[in-house]
């Protein structure tokens, strides 16, 4: 449907339809962010024997995040005097934009996708890498030692983990023979890639958590060490932008994992009567839950150990996986 719109005649009507659809996605994403934060707090609360937010919006605290965002919006916008002002203002934007841009290529169902690019996977990884620039910019522009250290950590971490992330999906690409996300989903009809590529999944998942800067890889923030890392000087809506970027990115990454390894909108056998959107949402939520669950349980990894793990464990394993997959593919082709 959307694909049709893109290639159709450029009329005002089509523009508005497309615009409306984009707005819809934006609302979905913002709605997701609102409730992902709530869900995270609730799940963390439950696992820690607390109730979590339950004051604003009834027993389940449904309006808690809304109230928080409102508070952030009316907060004073403080910019440190010694900060590099233009960069300080620009940084949240740089961090935030790519997180939204990557959403364009995610196939939520077989119909609902904004851009069906041939190299979708590559596009995702390339664009998402820009977020790091935003984080480093923020850390530099704040003119704060903690922020700078956080930014440096973030840069080192992103570079080290981008590589295993890419390497691990090469196995999937080898099996599919395409970098198009629709093709990847359709290739999983015989079985999800989590079954065919378990090693790739584990490597990808770990690298993804690191890319998302989440526990146990939250070194860039590291509340107990660097106070708040790169956004220590940010307040109000600028800070909210970082938060938003983080959660939108989490949304995108979970969606990507769902698409690449969990068969996207594909149903389980004999359950095809349930619509694809529901399947997608279910798998997506499992991934999100996993991320939250990790956050509740694990302590933070140390910076040098993180590097060591990335380069000495994940990367060799990912490369070995490519080799194995190639062998497997040849072997299957033999018969």
């Amino acid at each position, binding site marked *: 449907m959307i694909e049709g719109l893109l290639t159709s005649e450029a009329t005002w009507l089509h523009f508005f339809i497309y615009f409306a659809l984009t707005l819809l996605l934006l609302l979905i994403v913002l709605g997701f962010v609102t409730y992902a934060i709530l869900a995270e707090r609730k799940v963390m609360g439950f696992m820690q024997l*607390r109730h979590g937010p339950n004051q604003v919006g009834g027993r389940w605290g449904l309006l808690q995040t809304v109230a928080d965002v409102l508070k952030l919006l009316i907060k004073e916008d403080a910019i440190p005097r010694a900060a590099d002002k233009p960069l300080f203002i620009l940084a949240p934007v740089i961090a935030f934009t790519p997180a939204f841009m990557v959403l364009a290529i995610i196939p939520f169902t077989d119909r609902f996708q904004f851009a069906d690019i041939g190299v979708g996977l590559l596009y995702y990884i390339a664009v998402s890498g820009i977020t790091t620039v935003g984080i480093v910019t923020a850390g530099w522009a704040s003119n704060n030692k903690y922020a700078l250290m956080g930014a440096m950590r973030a840069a080192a971490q992103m570079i080290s983990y981008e590589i295993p992330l890419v390497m691990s999906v090469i196995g999937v690409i080898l099996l599919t023979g395409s970098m198009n996300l629709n093709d990847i989903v359709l290739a999983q009809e015989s079985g999800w890639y989590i079954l065919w590529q378990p090693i790739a999944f584990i490597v990808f998942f770990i690298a993804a958590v690191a890319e998302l800067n989440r526990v146990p890889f939250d070194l860039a923030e590291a509340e107990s060490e660097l106070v708040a890392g790169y956004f220590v000087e940010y307040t109000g809506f600028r800070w909210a932008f970082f938060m938003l970027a983080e959660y939108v990115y989490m949304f995108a990454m979970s969606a990507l994992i769902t698409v690449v390894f969990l068969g996207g909108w594909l149903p389980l056998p004999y359950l095809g009567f349930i619509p694809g959107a529901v399947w997608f949402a279910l798998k997506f939520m499992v991934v999100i839950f996993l991320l939250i*669950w990790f956050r509740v*349980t694990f302590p933070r990894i140390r910076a040098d150990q993180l590097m060591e793990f990335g380069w000495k464990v994940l990367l060799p394993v990912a490369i070995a996986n490519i080799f194995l997959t190639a062998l497997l593919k040849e072997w299957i082709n033999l018969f």
Partner: protein
Amino acid sequence: MFGLAKGLKYTLKNMTRKKLTYDYPNEPLPLPDRFRGIQKFYPEKCIVCNQCANICPTDCITLTGKKHPDSSKRGKIIDTYDINFEICILCDLCTEVCPTEAIIMTNQFELAEYSRDELFKDLVWLDENDTQLRRENKA
């Protein structure tokens, strides 16, 4: 990896356990009888012996007595009695030394005020403070 899995199992198990936090300001905090909260003062029991003011480690109690109005009786009665809750540490020593139990502890512990002056509690306030009085006052 095994240790990580064990940890994950532990947190998951706790997800369904009974929650420990409760709705504090709406649900009062259950406190034992011996709890040391803001003092209650009985002016009629006080014999102005000054022991509480003397034992107070932070010197937050000031009191004055006056002659008994009924001239046939001896001794003094209390005139003013102030506790400065800016410096009171609720150590319970004043109630411990009081021979007549004229000053006792209550279970009331919420002391937040908007100004420091309001923390200066006088005889009237301390006399009227009679919620959740402590039953057992002497060891």
